[in-house]
């Protein structure tokens, strides 16, 4: 399951979805908002998401991960909107019979989500400036 949420990610609820009697392990990744990027102090962060394609592409990523690293259950939620320092921006969880599949599938899902989904991140800096991440060339025009 892949979802976009405009509300706080409730980790315990997501984790419960992955419980499976055949699972021997569970692996999770949490992406947090940090207070610094490339030497600049960050005050808050804003995610813009094109939800229809983010969801379909996110589901595709999870299906690919299952082919590559057969797991039992997986879920991922990505935030949209304004987030503060320390907030959880993305959560990935995978349960599997063995730890290797759980670790590898979790890694695959977060790595692909970062480079494929139509999600953009605007940093708001402590000095009042702001900028789109990965988009410095166009930001400087």
């Amino acid at each position, binding site marked *: 399951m892949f979802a976009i949420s405009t509300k706080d990610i409730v980790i315990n609820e997501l984790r419960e979805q992955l419980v499976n009697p055949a699972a021997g392990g569970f692996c999770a990744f949490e992406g947090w908002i940090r207070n610094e990027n490339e030497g600049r102090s960050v005050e808050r962060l804003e995610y*813009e998401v094109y939800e229809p394609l983010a969801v379909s*592409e996110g589901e595709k990523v999870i299906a690919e991960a299952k082919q590559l690293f057969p797991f039992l259950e997986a879920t991922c939620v990505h935030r949209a909107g304004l987030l503060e320092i320390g907030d959880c921006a993305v959560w990935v969880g995978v349960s599997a019979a063995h730890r290797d599949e759980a670790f590898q599938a979790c890694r695959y899902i977060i790595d692909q*989500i970062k*480079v494929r989904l*139509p999600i953009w991140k605007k940093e708001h800096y402590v000095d009042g400036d702001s900028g789109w991440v990965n*988009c410095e060339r*166009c930001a400087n025009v």
Partner: protein
Amino acid sequence: MKTVTVRYFAIFREHAGLGEETLELDVAIAKDVFDQTRDRHGSSEPLGHCKVAINDAMADWSSEVCDGDTVLLFPPVAGG
């Protein structure tokens, strides 16, 4: 000429000053739409860093654009 609706996101939307516009364009493939709207709105991000979708399906820059299509131009993504 084809009637094409172009949708802009994130910094592309800021450069264009709007989220969507319908244009009459002399285009064959998605790259043509990127090039022509880049000239129009002054974005400088290289094509290779960007992505495109047509009618809500991910596409390639060489994908054909038909009359009435909606082309979504995505600047460099940054999820996670």
